[in-house]
Protein backbone atom coordinates (compact mmCIF):
# COMPACT_ATOMS: atom_id res chain seq x y z
CA UNK A 1 0.00 0.00 0.00
CA UNK A 2 1.29 3.44 -0.83
CA UNK A 3 1.21 6.17 1.75
CA UNK A 4 -1.11 8.44 -0.20
CA UNK A 5 -4.78 7.77 -0.63
CA UNK A 6 -4.85 6.35 -4.12
CA UNK A 7 -8.61 5.90 -4.08
CA UNK A 8 -9.47 9.57 -3.97
CA UNK A 9 -10.06 10.08 -7.67
CA UNK A 10 -13.00 10.26 -10.02
CA UNK A 11 -13.25 10.23 -13.82
CA UNK A 12 -15.32 12.90 -15.52
CA UNK A 13 -16.52 12.56 -19.11
CA UNK A 14 -16.96 15.26 -21.67
CA UNK A 15 -17.67 15.12 -25.40
CA UNK A 16 -15.92 17.00 -28.17
CA UNK A 17 -17.93 17.37 -31.38
CA UNK A 18 -15.36 19.46 -33.33
CA UNK A 19 -14.34 16.61 -35.64
CA UNK A 20 -17.86 15.43 -36.33
CA UNK A 21 -18.46 17.57 -39.43
CA UNK A 22 -15.27 16.77 -41.36
CA UNK A 23 -13.98 13.49 -40.02
CA UNK A 24 -17.21 12.00 -38.73
CA UNK A 25 -16.27 11.13 -35.20
CA UNK A 26 -17.00 12.34 -31.71
CA UNK A 27 -14.26 12.40 -29.09
CA UNK A 28 -14.99 11.32 -25.55
CA UNK A 29 -12.50 12.95 -23.20
CA UNK A 30 -11.88 11.61 -19.73
CA UNK A 31 -10.42 13.90 -17.13
CA UNK A 32 -9.39 12.53 -13.74
CA UNK A 33 -10.37 14.65 -10.77
CA UNK A 34 -8.62 14.37 -7.43
CA UNK A 35 -5.36 12.43 -6.86
CA UNK A 36 -4.56 11.17 -10.33
CA UNK A 37 -3.32 7.56 -10.02
CA UNK A 38 0.09 6.84 -11.51
CA UNK A 39 -1.16 3.94 -13.65
CA UNK A 40 -4.39 4.21 -15.57
CA UNK A 41 -6.11 1.89 -18.04
CA UNK A 42 -9.16 2.90 -20.05
CA UNK A 43 -11.76 0.58 -21.55
CA UNK A 44 -14.33 2.30 -23.72
CA UNK A 45 -17.76 0.91 -24.51
CA UNK A 46 -20.58 2.31 -26.57
CA UNK A 47 -24.15 1.35 -27.24
CA UNK A 48 -26.99 2.77 -29.27
CA UNK A 49 -30.08 4.10 -27.55
CA UNK A 50 -32.20 1.08 -28.45
CA UNK A 51 -29.43 -1.27 -27.35
CA UNK A 52 -29.23 -3.15 -30.62
CA UNK A 53 -25.66 -2.11 -31.38
CA UNK A 54 -22.72 -1.96 -29.04
CA UNK A 55 -18.97 -2.24 -28.96
CA UNK A 56 -15.93 -2.23 -26.73
CA UNK A 57 -12.26 -1.30 -27.03
CA UNK A 58 -9.22 -3.10 -25.65
CA UNK A 59 -7.66 -1.61 -22.50
CA UNK A 60 -5.57 1.40 -23.45
CA UNK A 61 -3.70 4.31 -21.93
CA UNK A 62 -5.34 7.07 -23.93
CA UNK A 63 -7.70 9.26 -21.93
CA UNK A 64 -9.76 9.98 -25.02
CA UNK A 65 -11.75 7.86 -27.42
CA UNK A 66 -12.71 8.70 -30.99
CA UNK A 67 -16.12 7.25 -31.58
CA UNK A 68 -17.15 6.73 -35.20
CA UNK A 69 -20.93 6.36 -35.10
CA UNK A 70 -22.41 3.71 -37.43
CA UNK A 71 -25.49 5.88 -38.02
CA UNK A 72 -27.32 8.92 -36.70
CA UNK A 73 -28.95 8.58 -33.35
CA UNK A 74 -28.19 8.63 -29.68
CA UNK A 75 -25.31 6.67 -28.23
CA UNK A 76 -24.10 6.12 -24.72
CA UNK A 77 -20.32 6.33 -24.46
CA UNK A 78 -18.74 4.94 -21.34
CA UNK A 79 -15.22 4.66 -19.98
CA UNK A 80 -14.14 2.19 -17.28
CA UNK A 81 -10.97 3.56 -15.71
CA UNK A 82 -8.80 1.16 -13.71
CA UNK A 83 -5.90 2.35 -11.57
CA UNK A 84 -2.74 0.51 -10.55
CA UNK A 85 -4.37 -1.21 -7.56
CA UNK A 86 -7.33 -2.49 -9.50
CA UNK A 87 -10.00 0.02 -8.57
CA UNK A 88 -12.36 0.65 -11.48
CA UNK A 89 -14.57 3.68 -11.85
CA UNK A 90 -16.82 4.63 -14.71
CA UNK A 91 -17.82 7.80 -16.41
CA UNK A 92 -20.10 8.09 -19.38
CA UNK A 93 -22.55 10.25 -21.24
CA UNK A 94 -25.06 10.28 -24.05
CA UNK A 95 -24.02 11.83 -27.35
CA UNK A 96 -26.37 12.88 -30.12
CA UNK A 97 -25.38 12.37 -33.74
CA UNK A 98 -27.33 14.07 -36.53
CA UNK A 99 -31.03 14.83 -36.38
CA UNK A 100 -32.65 12.68 -33.78
CA UNK A 101 -36.36 12.64 -33.33
CA UNK A 102 -37.00 13.84 -29.82
CA UNK A 103 -39.51 11.08 -29.06
CA UNK A 104 -36.67 8.59 -29.24
CA UNK A 105 -35.66 9.79 -25.83
CA UNK A 106 -38.57 11.18 -24.04
CA UNK A 107 -39.40 12.39 -20.63
CA UNK A 108 -42.98 13.11 -19.75
CA UNK A 109 -43.79 16.82 -19.68
CA UNK A 110 -43.90 18.51 -16.31
CA UNK A 111 -47.60 18.62 -15.40
CA UNK A 112 -49.26 21.81 -14.27
CA UNK A 113 -50.67 22.36 -10.82
CA UNK A 114 -54.18 21.26 -11.75
CA UNK A 115 -53.11 17.63 -12.34
CA UNK A 116 -54.16 15.07 -9.74
CA UNK A 117 -51.66 14.51 -6.95
CA UNK A 118 -50.96 10.81 -6.43
CA UNK A 119 -48.15 10.97 -3.91
CA UNK A 120 -48.30 13.75 -1.37
CA UNK A 121 -45.38 13.83 1.04
CA UNK A 122 -46.03 16.59 3.53
CA UNK A 123 -43.29 17.61 5.93
CA UNK A 124 -42.21 14.02 6.62
CA UNK A 125 -39.50 13.30 9.17
CA UNK A 126 -38.24 9.90 10.20
CA UNK A 127 -36.50 9.56 13.52
CA UNK A 128 -34.85 6.34 14.61
CA UNK A 129 -33.97 5.66 18.20
CA UNK A 130 -30.50 4.30 17.93
CA UNK A 131 -30.93 2.39 21.18
CA UNK A 132 -33.85 0.46 19.81
CA UNK A 133 -31.68 -0.81 16.98
CA UNK A 134 -28.97 -2.19 19.19
CA UNK A 135 -30.52 -4.79 21.44
CA UNK A 136 -31.14 -8.06 19.77
CA UNK A 137 -31.38 -10.21 22.81
CA UNK A 138 -32.96 -10.05 26.22
CA UNK A 139 -29.58 -10.30 27.87
CA UNK A 140 -28.19 -7.25 26.12
CA UNK A 141 -31.36 -5.36 26.87
CA UNK A 142 -31.37 -6.08 30.57
CA UNK A 143 -27.65 -5.41 30.93
CA UNK A 144 -28.19 -2.02 29.37
CA UNK A 145 -31.23 -1.45 31.54
CA UNK A 146 -29.28 -2.30 34.68
CA UNK A 147 -26.46 0.02 33.72
CA UNK A 148 -28.92 2.79 32.87
CA UNK A 149 -27.54 2.84 29.37
CA UNK A 150 -30.86 2.76 27.62
CA UNK A 151 -30.06 6.08 26.05
CA UNK A 152 -32.09 7.11 23.09
CA UNK A 153 -29.80 8.75 20.62
CA UNK A 154 -31.93 10.27 17.94
CA UNK A 155 -31.05 9.78 14.35
CA UNK A 156 -32.97 11.70 11.76
CA UNK A 157 -33.06 9.65 8.58
CA UNK A 158 -35.40 12.17 7.00
CA UNK A 159 -35.74 15.77 8.04
CA UNK A 160 -38.82 17.67 6.94
CA UNK A 161 -39.11 16.35 3.40
CA UNK A 162 -42.03 17.54 1.30
CA UNK A 163 -42.93 16.94 -2.30
CA UNK A 164 -45.90 16.16 -4.50
CA UNK A 165 -45.97 13.82 -7.43
CA UNK A 166 -48.67 14.30 -10.05
CA UNK A 167 -50.39 11.65 -12.11
CA UNK A 168 -48.44 10.67 -15.22
CA UNK A 169 -45.10 11.92 -13.97
CA UNK A 170 -41.84 10.06 -13.87
CA UNK A 171 -40.41 11.30 -10.63
CA UNK A 172 -36.82 10.61 -9.68
CA UNK A 173 -35.48 10.32 -6.17
CA UNK A 174 -31.70 10.62 -6.07
CA UNK A 175 -29.10 10.75 -3.33
CA UNK A 176 -25.87 9.08 -2.35
CA UNK A 177 -25.81 5.87 -0.31
CA UNK A 178 -27.41 6.30 3.09
CA UNK A 179 -29.07 9.55 2.17
CA UNK A 180 -32.56 8.41 3.13
CA UNK A 181 -33.90 7.38 -0.28
CA UNK A 182 -34.89 3.91 0.86
CA UNK A 183 -36.49 5.24 4.01
CA UNK A 184 -38.56 7.63 1.92
CA UNK A 185 -39.51 4.79 -0.38
CA UNK A 186 -40.62 2.62 2.54
CA UNK A 187 -42.81 5.40 3.85
CA UNK A 188 -44.41 5.88 0.44
CA UNK A 189 -44.91 2.12 0.07
CA UNK A 190 -46.71 2.21 3.44
CA UNK A 191 -44.48 -0.29 5.22
CA UNK A 192 -42.82 2.27 7.50
CA UNK A 193 -44.63 4.89 9.53
CA UNK A 194 -43.26 8.39 9.39
CA UNK A 195 -42.38 9.86 12.79
CA UNK A 196 -43.71 13.27 11.82
CA UNK A 197 -45.70 14.59 8.92
CA UNK A 198 -48.08 12.83 6.60
CA UNK A 199 -47.80 10.87 3.40
CA UNK A 200 -50.86 10.25 1.25
CA UNK A 201 -50.84 7.90 -1.69
CA UNK A 202 -53.74 7.62 -4.13
CA UNK A 203 -54.11 4.35 -5.97
CA UNK A 204 -52.38 1.01 -6.22
CA UNK A 205 -48.63 0.65 -5.77
CA UNK A 206 -46.56 -1.93 -7.59
CA UNK A 207 -43.03 -2.41 -6.29
CA UNK A 208 -40.45 -4.64 -7.94
CA UNK A 209 -40.15 -7.52 -5.52
CA UNK A 210 -36.57 -8.66 -5.44
CA UNK A 211 -34.95 -12.04 -5.23
CA UNK A 212 -35.47 -13.63 -1.86
CA UNK A 213 -38.54 -11.61 -0.96
CA UNK A 214 -41.62 -12.69 -2.83
CA UNK A 215 -39.89 -15.49 -4.67
CA UNK A 216 -39.24 -18.98 -3.50
CA UNK A 217 -36.17 -20.63 -4.93
CA UNK A 218 -37.66 -24.13 -4.85
CA UNK A 219 -40.84 -23.25 -6.69
CA UNK A 220 -41.02 -23.15 -10.46
CA UNK A 221 -41.32 -19.93 -12.42
CA UNK A 222 -45.02 -20.55 -12.98
CA UNK A 223 -45.71 -21.05 -9.28
CA UNK A 224 -43.65 -18.01 -8.43
CA UNK A 225 -45.63 -15.86 -10.83
CA UNK A 226 -48.83 -16.75 -8.99
CA UNK A 227 -47.23 -16.28 -5.57
CA UNK A 228 -45.75 -12.94 -6.52
CA UNK A 229 -48.94 -11.84 -8.22
CA UNK A 230 -50.94 -12.59 -5.09
CA UNK A 231 -48.54 -10.54 -2.99
CA UNK A 232 -49.09 -7.59 -5.31
CA UNK A 233 -52.82 -8.10 -4.91
CA UNK A 234 -53.67 -9.33 -8.41
CA UNK A 235 -56.79 -11.36 -8.92
CA UNK A 236 -56.23 -15.00 -9.80
CA UNK A 237 -58.25 -14.67 -13.00
CA UNK A 238 -56.16 -11.68 -13.97
CA UNK A 239 -52.93 -13.67 -13.61
CA UNK A 240 -54.47 -16.58 -15.54
CA UNK A 241 -55.33 -14.23 -18.37
CA UNK A 242 -51.98 -12.48 -18.50
CA UNK A 243 -49.66 -15.41 -17.82
CA UNK A 244 -48.66 -15.51 -21.49
CA UNK A 245 -47.80 -11.81 -21.49
CA UNK A 246 -45.61 -12.19 -18.42
CA UNK A 247 -43.82 -15.21 -19.88
CA UNK A 248 -43.23 -13.45 -23.14
CA UNK A 249 -41.91 -10.27 -21.60
CA UNK A 250 -39.61 -12.11 -19.23
CA UNK A 251 -38.45 -14.39 -22.08
CA UNK A 252 -38.94 -17.60 -20.11
CA UNK A 253 -40.94 -19.72 -22.48
CA UNK A 254 -38.88 -22.87 -22.14
CA UNK A 255 -38.10 -22.51 -18.47
CA UNK A 256 -41.56 -22.26 -16.98
CA UNK A 257 -41.42 -25.47 -14.98
CA UNK A 258 -37.86 -25.18 -13.76
CA UNK A 259 -37.21 -24.31 -10.11
CA UNK A 260 -36.13 -20.73 -9.68
CA UNK A 261 -32.84 -21.66 -8.06
CA UNK A 262 -31.55 -22.67 -11.48
CA UNK A 263 -32.21 -19.18 -12.82
CA UNK A 264 -29.76 -16.31 -13.06
CA UNK A 265 -30.45 -13.24 -10.95
CA UNK A 266 -31.15 -11.31 -14.13
CA UNK A 267 -33.90 -13.73 -15.08
CA UNK A 268 -35.55 -13.30 -11.70
CA UNK A 269 -35.39 -9.53 -12.09
CA UNK A 270 -37.11 -9.95 -15.45
CA UNK A 271 -39.95 -11.92 -13.89
CA UNK A 272 -40.32 -9.35 -11.13
CA UNK A 273 -40.50 -6.53 -13.63
CA UNK A 274 -42.89 -8.40 -15.90
CA UNK A 275 -45.28 -9.11 -13.03
CA UNK A 276 -45.17 -5.58 -11.65
CA UNK A 277 -45.91 -3.98 -15.01
CA UNK A 278 -48.38 -6.45 -16.53
CA UNK A 279 -51.25 -4.41 -15.13
CA UNK A 280 -51.26 -0.66 -15.23
CA UNK A 281 -50.54 0.18 -11.61
CA UNK A 282 -51.28 3.71 -10.50
CA UNK A 283 -47.78 3.98 -9.11
CA UNK A 284 -44.82 1.91 -10.21
CA UNK A 285 -41.82 1.95 -7.92
CA UNK A 286 -38.59 1.23 -9.77
CA UNK A 287 -35.49 0.83 -7.65
CA UNK A 288 -32.05 -0.73 -7.80
CA UNK A 289 -33.59 -4.18 -8.30
CA UNK A 290 -33.57 -3.48 -12.00
CA UNK A 291 -29.82 -2.96 -12.16
CA UNK A 292 -29.11 -6.72 -12.02
CA UNK A 293 -30.51 -7.16 -15.51
CA UNK A 294 -28.24 -6.72 -18.54
CA UNK A 295 -28.49 -3.54 -20.56
CA UNK A 296 -30.67 -5.12 -23.23
CA UNK A 297 -33.21 -5.96 -20.62
CA UNK A 298 -32.85 -2.55 -19.02
CA UNK A 299 -33.64 -1.00 -22.39
CA UNK A 300 -36.69 -3.21 -22.65
CA UNK A 301 -37.80 -2.15 -19.19
CA UNK A 302 -37.26 1.49 -20.04
CA UNK A 303 -39.46 1.08 -23.10
CA UNK A 304 -42.17 -0.60 -21.05
CA UNK A 305 -41.94 2.09 -18.40
CA UNK A 306 -42.21 4.74 -21.09
CA UNK A 307 -45.23 2.96 -22.52
CA UNK A 308 -46.82 3.03 -19.08
CA UNK A 309 -46.00 6.69 -18.63
CA UNK A 310 -47.33 7.37 -22.11
CA UNK A 311 -50.70 5.96 -21.12
CA UNK A 312 -51.05 8.96 -18.83
CA UNK A 313 -52.44 6.91 -15.95
CA UNK A 314 -49.27 5.52 -14.48
CA UNK A 315 -46.91 7.44 -12.26
CA UNK A 316 -43.37 6.17 -11.98
CA UNK A 317 -41.18 6.69 -8.97
CA UNK A 318 -37.58 5.98 -9.90
CA UNK A 319 -35.09 5.61 -7.09
CA UNK A 320 -31.43 5.39 -7.83
CA UNK A 321 -28.03 6.65 -6.90
CA UNK A 322 -26.91 6.48 -10.51
CA UNK A 323 -28.35 9.32 -12.45
CA UNK A 324 -28.13 8.10 -16.03
CA UNK A 325 -31.48 6.37 -15.88
CA UNK A 326 -33.05 9.20 -13.93
CA UNK A 327 -31.83 11.67 -16.54
CA UNK A 328 -33.17 9.58 -19.37
CA UNK A 329 -36.68 9.16 -18.00
CA UNK A 330 -37.72 11.59 -15.32
CA UNK A 331 -39.34 14.97 -15.72
CA UNK A 332 -38.69 16.06 -12.15
CA UNK A 333 -36.22 14.97 -9.53
CA UNK A 334 -35.95 15.31 -5.79
CA UNK A 335 -32.46 15.13 -4.35
CA UNK A 336 -32.16 13.98 -0.77
CA UNK A 337 -28.83 14.20 1.00
CA UNK A 338 -28.25 13.01 4.58
CA UNK A 339 -31.97 13.18 5.21
CA UNK A 340 -32.32 16.75 4.03
CA UNK A 341 -34.14 17.73 0.90
CA UNK A 342 -31.34 19.43 -1.01
CA UNK A 343 -33.13 20.29 -4.20
CA UNK A 344 -36.30 19.59 -6.13
CA UNK A 345 -37.11 20.62 -9.66
CA UNK A 346 -36.74 19.81 -13.36
CA UNK A 347 -34.36 16.92 -14.07
CA UNK A 348 -31.61 18.86 -15.82
CA UNK A 349 -31.23 21.41 -13.04
CA UNK A 350 -31.15 18.89 -10.22
CA UNK A 351 -28.92 16.41 -12.03
CA UNK A 352 -26.41 19.14 -12.88
CA UNK A 353 -26.24 20.11 -9.23
CA UNK A 354 -26.03 16.47 -8.12
CA UNK A 355 -23.16 15.83 -10.54
CA UNK A 356 -21.23 18.74 -9.07
CA UNK A 357 -21.38 17.07 -5.65
CA UNK A 358 -18.54 14.71 -6.51
CA UNK A 359 -16.31 17.45 -7.89
Amino acid at each position, binding site marked *: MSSQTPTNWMPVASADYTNLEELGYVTLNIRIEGDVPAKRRFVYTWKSSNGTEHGQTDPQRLASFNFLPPHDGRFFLNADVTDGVGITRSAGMWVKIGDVAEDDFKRPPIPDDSAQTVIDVDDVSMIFNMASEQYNSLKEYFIALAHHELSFKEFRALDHVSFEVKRGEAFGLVGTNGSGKSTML*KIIAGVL*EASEGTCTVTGSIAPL*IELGAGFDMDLTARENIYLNGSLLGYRKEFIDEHLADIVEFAELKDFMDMPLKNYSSGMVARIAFAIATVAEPDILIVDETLSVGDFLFQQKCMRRIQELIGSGNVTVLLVSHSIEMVEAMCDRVCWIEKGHQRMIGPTDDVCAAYRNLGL
Partner: protein
Amino acid sequence: MQTETKEIQPDGQSAWYPERQKSLYILRQLVTRDFKLKYRRSFLGVLWSVLNPLLMMVVMAAVFSTMMRFSSDSIPSYPLYIILGNVTFSLMSDSTSQGMRSIIDAASLLKKVRIKRWVFPLEKVLFAIVNFAFSLIAVLIVMLAVGVHPTWTALLLPVFLAYVGMFCIGLSLLLASLAVFFRDVIHLWSVVLTAWTYATPLFYPAEILPAWMLSLERFNPMYHFVNYARTLLLYQQVPSAMLNAACAFCGVAMLAIGILVFRKTEHRFILYI
Protein backbone atom coordinates in the same frame (compact mmCIF):
# COMPACT_ATOMS: atom_id res chain seq x y z
CA MET B 1 -47.96 8.47 11.04
CA GLN B 2 -49.07 5.59 8.88
CA THR B 3 -49.08 6.36 5.18
CA GLU B 4 -52.63 6.70 4.00
CA THR B 5 -53.53 4.86 0.84
CA LYS B 6 -56.68 5.70 -1.04
CA GLU B 7 -58.29 3.20 -3.36
CA ILE B 8 -59.31 4.62 -6.70
CA GLN B 9 -61.23 2.05 -8.65
CA PRO B 10 -63.80 -0.03 -6.85
CA ASP B 11 -65.21 -1.38 -10.11
CA GLY B 12 -65.59 -5.15 -10.22
CA GLN B 13 -63.38 -5.88 -13.19
CA SER B 14 -60.11 -4.38 -12.03
CA ALA B 15 -56.89 -6.37 -11.91
CA TRP B 16 -56.66 -6.07 -8.14
CA TYR B 17 -58.50 -7.68 -5.29
CA PRO B 18 -59.95 -5.48 -2.59
CA GLU B 19 -58.01 -5.58 0.69
CA ARG B 20 -59.81 -8.46 2.40
CA GLN B 21 -59.88 -10.78 -0.61
CA LYS B 22 -56.25 -9.97 -1.25
CA SER B 23 -55.26 -11.28 2.17
CA LEU B 24 -57.34 -14.41 1.68
CA TYR B 25 -55.74 -15.09 -1.70
CA ILE B 26 -52.26 -14.56 -0.25
CA LEU B 27 -53.11 -17.00 2.54
CA ARG B 28 -54.16 -19.58 -0.01
CA GLN B 29 -51.05 -19.08 -2.12
CA LEU B 30 -48.76 -19.35 0.89
CA VAL B 31 -50.40 -22.51 2.22
CA THR B 32 -50.15 -24.02 -1.26
CA ARG B 33 -46.49 -23.06 -1.43
CA ASP B 34 -45.67 -24.60 1.94
CA PHE B 35 -47.53 -27.74 1.03
CA LYS B 36 -45.73 -28.12 -2.30
CA LEU B 37 -42.34 -27.44 -0.77
CA LYS B 38 -42.82 -29.88 2.06
CA TYR B 39 -43.26 -32.85 -0.23
CA ARG B 40 -41.43 -31.80 -3.37
CA ARG B 41 -38.84 -34.34 -4.42
CA SER B 42 -39.83 -36.89 -1.81
CA PHE B 43 -40.79 -40.27 -3.19
CA LEU B 44 -43.80 -40.91 -1.01
CA GLY B 45 -44.87 -37.27 -1.05
CA VAL B 46 -47.98 -36.40 0.86
CA LEU B 47 -48.17 -39.96 2.19
CA TRP B 48 -45.60 -38.86 4.76
CA SER B 49 -48.25 -36.76 6.50
CA VAL B 50 -50.01 -40.03 7.26
CA LEU B 51 -46.95 -42.22 7.75
CA ASN B 52 -45.15 -39.91 10.09
CA PRO B 53 -47.65 -39.92 12.99
CA LEU B 54 -48.20 -43.63 12.40
CA LEU B 55 -44.51 -44.47 12.70
CA MET B 56 -44.09 -42.17 15.70
CA MET B 57 -46.97 -43.94 17.37
CA VAL B 58 -45.43 -47.37 16.70
CA VAL B 59 -42.10 -46.29 18.22
CA MET B 60 -43.70 -44.74 21.27
CA ALA B 61 -46.12 -47.58 21.84
CA ALA B 62 -43.26 -50.06 21.62
CA VAL B 63 -41.04 -48.11 23.99
CA PHE B 64 -43.60 -47.17 26.59
CA SER B 65 -45.76 -50.25 26.74
CA THR B 66 -42.94 -52.82 26.75
CA MET B 67 -40.11 -51.02 28.52
CA MET B 68 -41.94 -48.66 30.85
CA ARG B 69 -44.98 -50.93 31.16
CA PHE B 70 -47.41 -48.05 31.00
CA SER B 71 -50.90 -49.30 30.67
CA SER B 72 -54.15 -48.65 32.33
CA ASP B 73 -57.50 -50.34 32.48
CA SER B 74 -59.17 -47.02 31.81
CA ILE B 75 -57.51 -46.78 28.38
CA PRO B 76 -59.35 -48.92 25.83
CA SER B 77 -56.45 -48.80 23.36
CA TYR B 78 -52.99 -47.61 24.24
CA PRO B 79 -51.80 -47.01 20.60
CA LEU B 80 -54.87 -44.87 19.91
CA TYR B 81 -54.28 -43.03 23.18
CA ILE B 82 -50.73 -42.18 22.08
CA ILE B 83 -51.47 -41.15 18.52
CA LEU B 84 -54.31 -38.84 19.56
CA GLY B 85 -52.05 -37.14 22.09
CA ASN B 86 -49.25 -36.85 19.56
CA VAL B 87 -51.19 -35.41 16.63
CA THR B 88 -52.92 -32.89 18.87
CA PHE B 89 -49.69 -31.79 20.43
CA SER B 90 -47.81 -31.56 17.14
CA LEU B 91 -50.60 -29.43 15.71
CA MET B 92 -49.78 -26.93 18.43
CA SER B 93 -46.00 -27.31 18.33
CA ASP B 94 -45.77 -27.17 14.51
CA SER B 95 -47.98 -24.13 14.17
CA THR B 96 -46.34 -22.17 16.97
CA SER B 97 -42.73 -22.91 16.11
CA GLN B 98 -43.38 -22.08 12.45
CA GLY B 99 -45.62 -19.14 13.23
CA MET B 100 -43.04 -17.71 15.61
CA ARG B 101 -40.48 -17.35 12.82
CA SER B 102 -42.95 -16.29 10.15
CA ILE B 103 -42.57 -12.53 10.55
CA ILE B 104 -38.78 -12.70 10.65
CA ASP B 105 -38.72 -14.92 7.58
CA ALA B 106 -40.96 -12.54 5.67
CA ALA B 107 -38.72 -9.59 6.55
CA SER B 108 -37.60 -8.68 3.06
CA LEU B 109 -41.16 -8.77 1.83
CA LEU B 110 -42.58 -6.74 4.69
CA LYS B 111 -39.98 -4.06 4.01
CA LYS B 112 -41.26 -3.58 0.50
CA VAL B 113 -44.87 -4.45 0.06
CA ARG B 114 -47.80 -3.41 2.14
CA ILE B 115 -49.37 -6.68 3.25
CA LYS B 116 -51.38 -7.41 6.35
CA ARG B 117 -48.72 -8.70 8.72
CA TRP B 118 -50.99 -11.19 10.49
CA VAL B 119 -51.18 -13.15 7.25
CA PHE B 120 -47.84 -14.82 7.96
CA PRO B 121 -48.43 -16.34 11.44
CA LEU B 122 -52.00 -17.24 10.47
CA GLU B 123 -50.77 -19.02 7.36
CA LYS B 124 -48.47 -21.24 9.40
CA VAL B 125 -51.34 -22.27 11.67
CA LEU B 126 -53.55 -23.04 8.67
CA PHE B 127 -50.78 -25.12 7.16
CA ALA B 128 -50.43 -27.06 10.43
CA ILE B 129 -54.19 -27.66 10.41
CA VAL B 130 -53.98 -29.02 6.85
CA ASN B 131 -51.28 -31.41 8.04
CA PHE B 132 -53.40 -32.32 11.03
CA ALA B 133 -56.22 -33.24 8.67
CA PHE B 134 -53.90 -35.69 6.92
CA SER B 135 -52.74 -37.18 10.19
CA LEU B 136 -56.38 -37.88 11.00
CA ILE B 137 -56.15 -40.52 8.29
CA ALA B 138 -53.43 -42.15 10.37
CA VAL B 139 -55.72 -41.94 13.39
CA LEU B 140 -58.49 -43.60 11.42
CA ILE B 141 -56.13 -46.40 10.38
CA VAL B 142 -55.18 -47.01 14.01
CA MET B 143 -58.83 -46.93 15.08
CA LEU B 144 -59.76 -49.59 12.54
CA ALA B 145 -56.68 -51.65 13.40
CA VAL B 146 -57.41 -51.73 17.12
CA GLY B 147 -61.13 -52.23 16.61
CA VAL B 148 -62.40 -48.89 17.93
CA HIS B 149 -64.83 -47.86 15.24
CA PRO B 150 -65.56 -44.17 14.88
CA THR B 151 -68.99 -43.10 16.06
CA TRP B 152 -70.98 -39.93 15.52
CA THR B 153 -68.92 -38.15 18.22
CA ALA B 154 -66.22 -37.77 15.55
CA LEU B 155 -68.51 -35.20 13.96
CA LEU B 156 -67.58 -32.86 16.81
CA LEU B 157 -64.00 -32.64 15.52
CA PRO B 158 -64.61 -29.21 13.92
CA VAL B 159 -65.49 -27.87 17.37
CA PHE B 160 -62.24 -29.28 18.67
CA LEU B 161 -60.34 -27.71 15.76
CA ALA B 162 -61.96 -24.35 16.44
CA TYR B 163 -60.74 -24.42 20.06
CA VAL B 164 -57.21 -25.54 19.22
CA GLY B 165 -57.07 -23.29 16.16
CA MET B 166 -57.87 -20.19 18.20
CA PHE B 167 -55.30 -21.19 20.77
CA CYS B 168 -52.58 -21.77 18.14
CA ILE B 169 -53.33 -18.55 16.26
CA GLY B 170 -53.17 -16.55 19.48
CA LEU B 171 -49.97 -18.20 20.63
CA SER B 172 -48.35 -17.81 17.19
CA LEU B 173 -49.22 -14.12 17.02
CA LEU B 174 -47.78 -13.63 20.49
CA LEU B 175 -44.58 -15.56 19.79
CA ALA B 176 -44.13 -13.95 16.36
CA SER B 177 -44.24 -10.48 17.93
CA LEU B 178 -41.90 -11.44 20.76
CA ALA B 179 -39.42 -13.13 18.40
CA VAL B 180 -39.15 -9.95 16.34
CA PHE B 181 -37.92 -7.98 19.35
CA PHE B 182 -36.00 -10.71 21.13
CA ARG B 183 -34.53 -13.52 19.06
CA ASP B 184 -33.90 -15.42 22.31
CA VAL B 185 -37.53 -16.46 22.24
CA ILE B 186 -36.80 -18.75 19.30
CA HIS B 187 -34.19 -20.70 21.23
CA LEU B 188 -36.22 -20.73 24.39
CA TRP B 189 -39.37 -21.98 22.71
CA SER B 190 -37.89 -25.31 21.63
CA VAL B 191 -36.98 -25.97 25.27
CA VAL B 192 -40.43 -24.95 26.41
CA LEU B 193 -42.00 -27.28 23.85
CA THR B 194 -39.91 -30.20 25.06
CA ALA B 195 -40.84 -29.53 28.67
CA TRP B 196 -44.47 -29.15 27.65
CA THR B 197 -44.38 -32.52 25.88
CA TYR B 198 -43.42 -34.22 29.13
CA ALA B 199 -45.77 -32.13 31.25
CA THR B 200 -48.75 -33.23 29.17
CA PRO B 201 -50.00 -36.84 29.46
CA LEU B 202 -49.26 -37.72 25.85
CA PHE B 203 -47.68 -41.14 26.22
CA TYR B 204 -48.37 -41.89 29.88
CA PRO B 205 -51.75 -42.28 31.55
CA ALA B 206 -52.79 -39.23 33.56
CA GLU B 207 -53.46 -41.45 36.61
CA ILE B 208 -49.77 -42.15 37.21
CA LEU B 209 -49.29 -38.51 38.13
CA PRO B 210 -49.31 -37.67 41.84
CA ALA B 211 -52.39 -35.80 42.97
CA TRP B 212 -50.69 -32.41 43.21
CA MET B 213 -49.40 -32.65 39.65
CA LEU B 214 -52.75 -33.76 38.37
CA SER B 215 -54.35 -30.71 39.95
CA LEU B 216 -51.74 -28.55 38.20
CA GLU B 217 -52.77 -30.02 34.85
CA ARG B 218 -55.89 -27.88 35.10
CA PHE B 219 -53.68 -24.95 34.08
CA ASN B 220 -52.22 -26.79 31.09
CA PRO B 221 -54.29 -25.92 28.01
CA MET B 222 -52.81 -28.84 26.08
CA TYR B 223 -54.10 -31.22 28.77
CA HIS B 224 -57.64 -30.07 28.03
CA PHE B 225 -57.21 -30.17 24.26
CA VAL B 226 -55.70 -33.66 24.30
CA ASN B 227 -58.48 -34.78 26.62
CA TYR B 228 -61.04 -33.37 24.24
CA ALA B 229 -59.62 -35.25 21.26
CA ARG B 230 -59.50 -38.50 23.25
CA THR B 231 -63.03 -38.03 24.52
CA LEU B 232 -64.26 -37.73 20.95
CA LEU B 233 -62.33 -40.53 19.31
CA LEU B 234 -61.10 -42.89 22.03
CA TYR B 235 -63.84 -42.85 24.70
CA GLN B 236 -66.39 -41.77 22.10
CA GLN B 237 -68.44 -39.61 24.39
CA VAL B 238 -69.70 -36.06 24.17
CA PRO B 239 -67.21 -33.89 26.07
CA SER B 240 -68.58 -32.52 29.31
CA ALA B 241 -69.66 -28.91 29.63
CA MET B 242 -66.68 -28.37 31.94
CA LEU B 243 -64.22 -29.62 29.32
CA ASN B 244 -65.87 -27.53 26.62
CA ALA B 245 -65.70 -24.47 28.83
CA ALA B 246 -62.03 -25.09 29.65
CA CYS B 247 -61.08 -25.50 25.98
CA ALA B 248 -63.13 -22.51 24.86
CA PHE B 249 -61.63 -20.36 27.58
CA CYS B 250 -58.05 -21.36 26.67
CA GLY B 251 -58.70 -20.71 22.98
CA VAL B 252 -60.45 -17.37 23.34
CA ALA B 253 -58.09 -16.06 26.03
CA MET B 254 -54.97 -16.98 24.04
CA LEU B 255 -56.41 -15.49 20.87
CA ALA B 256 -57.27 -12.25 22.67
CA ILE B 257 -53.79 -11.96 24.18
CA GLY B 258 -52.14 -12.75 20.83
CA ILE B 259 -54.19 -10.21 18.89
CA LEU B 260 -53.66 -7.56 21.53
CA VAL B 261 -49.88 -7.94 21.66
CA PHE B 262 -49.58 -8.24 17.89
CA ARG B 263 -51.63 -5.14 17.20
CA LYS B 264 -49.77 -3.14 19.81
CA THR B 265 -46.37 -4.01 18.40
CA GLU B 266 -46.76 -4.71 14.68
CA HIS B 267 -46.09 -1.15 13.52
CA ARG B 268 -42.62 -1.35 15.05
CA PHE B 269 -41.71 -4.72 13.46
CA ILE B 270 -40.02 -3.12 10.48
CA LEU B 271 -37.44 -1.44 12.72
CA TYR B 272 -36.27 -4.81 14.05
CA ILE B 273 -36.47 -7.18 11.10
